[in-house]
């Protein structure tokens, strides 16, 4: 179906190719997963499937890419639209029309499909993706998961034989992501559509994949069955880590397979893990840095945050979880003082100051916030200029620690002359975090920092957060990523409908609910193990005793 024959891609103005000498064949009806670090060329590979690379992006393609018998060198993306459907990362950015129905019809209109057939196909697609009740809705008013399903539907109405999806779930909460992935697997199984999918959070998709293409980052590629590739790859979901640790053969890829293999392991491990999932707090009874009580945020008739009270301690990293729209962002913005707050009090530090009553410049010295799109905060041409500007912005005098030093401490190796927008998502986040830390706030709030980060970037974010907590900052991270929370946070607060539903230590909260549990907890339940290092320590104890 898709044949890469010694294909290589070099972008204009770059000396080394992004991808080189790729040769593989994706058969009809396969779900092919493309994995690799940020910047390893996943998007380039996906773009090459329908000819966007190089026709749209520029650059040079060597070798041949043949899709359904058509060579992409001769066919432009628009001429492949009847064979390849494409769904991007941000569905809203790719919508051409306003309403669900018109969007679904758009590709068919371009392909000049007869109106009667168009009508029938559209109805089928609405049912296939479970979006029939949305048909007249405006696209902008849909939730992220609904938008992504509409985008998939819009690609599907043309009856393409190949569907290319570039990180379709990166912006979604776990439930919406499940919906989207369920829709994709249904397409593979019921319609035999060939799917090429790039995804950071492997744990969700790997059980469904028939084939994995691993981009090592140096332009080379490894391709084969999921279990074979994952043993070698640097990016691995927790279930595979556990399988490797326990020496299971064949390597289980889904929680179900692993659980069946794990009965011996469960008996072998001590009942209580010898290690906590995270090193204990330096000072468990640290002084409260921020106390909020009765916070209410509302936008017209919509109550976003409903009388929430929260105490944050220095040295503690708190995860704020909950589905999209449960009020996480509104709460963070209200705590920082910039966001609106109808009622409630916030007091920070020993002086019990309310940041909302201060000027923005003084409020950020109490509470720093890194918004969902960190790039909104940077506007200069180089990292260096941005850091110098950050130093100047500390109105109280020279900063305790210059922004450059902070950045080097939390994320060494960010080039000074690079354009902030050319940095990877992880580096951009570190830059903005360094800018906010220059004001030396007592509390640091991060709104969905894990969005679009790969395993490596997440690991370095965990190191950064540990550093901040060790220096006595109170840290709050709003996130959907359970595996991240297990490793990064001491405490989990779950919100729903603007209220706090659960608040407790990570290990307790995450093992209590089956949906929020990390993979290893699901495999080893009822044993309260959360990370593979706990399992490794448990196995060590077994061996030594």
């Amino acid at each position, binding site marked *: 179906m898709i044949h890469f024959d010694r294909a290589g891609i070099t972008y204009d103005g770059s000396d080394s190719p992004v991808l080189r000498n790729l040769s593989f064949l994706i058969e009809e009806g396969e779900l092919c997963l493309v994995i690799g670090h940020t910047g390893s060329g996943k998007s380039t590979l996906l773009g090459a499937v329908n000819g966007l690379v190089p026709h749209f992006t520029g650059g040079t393609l060597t070798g041949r890419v043949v899709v359904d018998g058509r060579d992409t060198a001769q066919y432009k993306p628009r001429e492949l639209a009847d064979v390849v459907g494409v769904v991007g990362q*941000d569905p809203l950015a790719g919508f*051409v029309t306003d309403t669900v129905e018109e969007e679904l019809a758009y590709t068919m*209109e*371009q392909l000049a499909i007869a109106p009667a057939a168009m009508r029938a196909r559209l109805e089928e697609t609405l049912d296939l993706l479970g979006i029939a009740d949305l048909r007249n809705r405006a696209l902008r008013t849909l939730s992220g998961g609904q938008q992504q399903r509409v985008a998939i539907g819009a690609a599907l109405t043309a009856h393409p034989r190949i569907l290319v999806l570039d990180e379709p779930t990166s912006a979604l909460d776990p439930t919406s992501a499940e919906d989207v992935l369920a829709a994709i697997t249904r397409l593979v199984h019921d319609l035999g559509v060939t799917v090429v999918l790039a995804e950071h959070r492997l744990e969700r998709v790997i059980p469904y994949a028939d084939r994995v293409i691993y981009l090592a980052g140096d332009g080379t590629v490894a391709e084969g069955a999921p279990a074979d590739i994952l043993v070698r790859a640097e990016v691995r979901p927790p279930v595979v880590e556990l399988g490797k640790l326990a020496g299971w053969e064949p390597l289980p890829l889904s929680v179900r397979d692993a659980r069946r293999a794990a009965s011996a392991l469960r008996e072998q491990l001590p009942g209580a893990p010898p290690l906590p999932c995270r090193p204990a707090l330096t000072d468990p009874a640290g002084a409260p840095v921020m106390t909020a009580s009765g916070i209410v945020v509302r936008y017209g008739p919509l109550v976003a945050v409903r009388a929430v009270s929260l105490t944050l301690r220095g040295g503690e990293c708190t995860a704020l979880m909950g*589905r999209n729209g449960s009020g996480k962002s509104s709460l963070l*913005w209200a705590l920082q003082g910039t966001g609106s707050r109808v009622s409630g009090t916030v007091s920070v530090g020993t002086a019990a100051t309310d940041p909302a009553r201060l000027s923005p410049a003084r409020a950020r010295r109490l509470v720093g916030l890194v*918004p969902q799109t960190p790039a909104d905060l940077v506007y200069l041409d180089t990292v260096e200029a941005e850091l110098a500007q950050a130093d100047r912005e500390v109105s109280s005098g020279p900063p305790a620690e210059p922004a450059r030093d902070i950045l080097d401490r939390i994320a060494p190796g960010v080039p000074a002359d690079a354009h902030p927008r050319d940095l990877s998502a992880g580096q951009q986040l570190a830059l903005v975090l360094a800018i*906010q830390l220059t004001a030396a706030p007592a509390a640091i709030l991060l709104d969905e920092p894990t969005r679009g980060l790969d395993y490596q970037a997440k690991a370095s974010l965990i190191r950064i957060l540990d550093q901040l907590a060790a220096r006595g900052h109170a840290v709050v991270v709003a996130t959907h990523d359970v595996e991240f929370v297990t490793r990064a946070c001491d405490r989990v607060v779950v919100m729903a409908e603007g209220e706090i539903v659960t608040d407790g230590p990570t290990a307790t909260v995450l093992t209590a609910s089956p949906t929020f549990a990390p993979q290893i907890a699901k495999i080893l339940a009822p044993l309260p193990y959360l990370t593979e290092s706990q399992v490794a320590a448990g196995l060590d104890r077994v061996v030594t005793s």
Partner: protein
Amino acid sequence: MTADGSSRSPTARTRYRRFGLAAGGRRLPRVLHPVAWWIWALALGVAASRTTNPLLLLLILAVLCLVVAVRRGDAPWARGYRFYLVMALTVIVIRVVFRIVFESGVTPGDHILFSLPRIPTPSWYAGIQIGGPVSLEAVLSAALDGARLACLLCCIGAANTLANPKRALRVLPGALYELGVAVTVALSVAPQLVESTQRVRRARRLRGGDRRRLHALRAVAIPVLHDALERSLLLAAAMDSRGYGRTGTATRASRRLTAVLLLAGMAGLCVGAYGLLDAGMPGALSASGFAAGSAACVAGLALGGRRVSRTHYRPDPWRWPEWVVTACGLVSAVGLCVTVGYNPAVLNPSLYPLHWPSLPLIPAVAILAAALAALVAPPPPAPVPADRSVPEPQPVLRDLAGAPR
């Protein structure tokens, strides 16, 4: 209004039913063809532009309001009529205020209302006087002039309210399809820009916010522009992948011929229009210019459209209600343009001497004919029920979460 008008009293409901006004009437609710609404509204606009008779203008406004109230849908664009009314009122007020401030000469018989202190203007500014006596006649003529303009505005507003502007673009001939898409995309960029400006400005405060104006402008403008650029690239890539611009089998020669025909047609139309405006030109020349120009344009569009292979999903049908609505509008335009059977002076009543304007019968009937559209047009579809299965707030609201009040 609920779908069956149940919130109204029974008599009102039966009356609604009888005229097929309620959505639950015998006729199936559907959207009238947007072009029919546009022709109707523009024809009323032509009628309005012909007169400064306040009674006729009020009549036109009443017709517009009636039709909009009865036949608009529930879509976002259909809720903006009040905005047009406010704008219309503003136009009148501005016009009157300007006339009061910039005095424009008073004839001996004028009724002086009051007098403003005169402000001396420099010699190079001669000819325009600020302040001075204000006469009733001057104010009235400004108000009537403003009212005519306001009426025109309301006509455009009615068209925008009654018909989805983007759907109207879909009926453009195939050769102009690209133009239509460009306009549609441009229309959707505006709200996106507003949204990202709000987001960036809010984020800006997290950095303390530099108080220097130029700096602050840059700090907001650059991320917003980056955002817009990125989005437009994504959109272009998405459109390309979805088959936009599959040219089909147009040859170079046919493309050139299309361009030549269209250019010639435009030139012909220009000659025709010039002839209409310039009395010195022979009528035959302008008529032939018009005819040749239109023919060339139609041929060019047809030729250009032939190479475009594209279909329309659920095209709006053109049935008898569309014909009647269009005809209703045209009747009012013709009634006020062709001054047969009444004295043309009643359309623009003189203010000297001041007198109460009369309501001429034929123009009034012609305008009332346009109101028939309210009866003839099918009832709009029932509003889309709000999605009950998803309690999640809308992403737009989510994006604004935490926006400073």
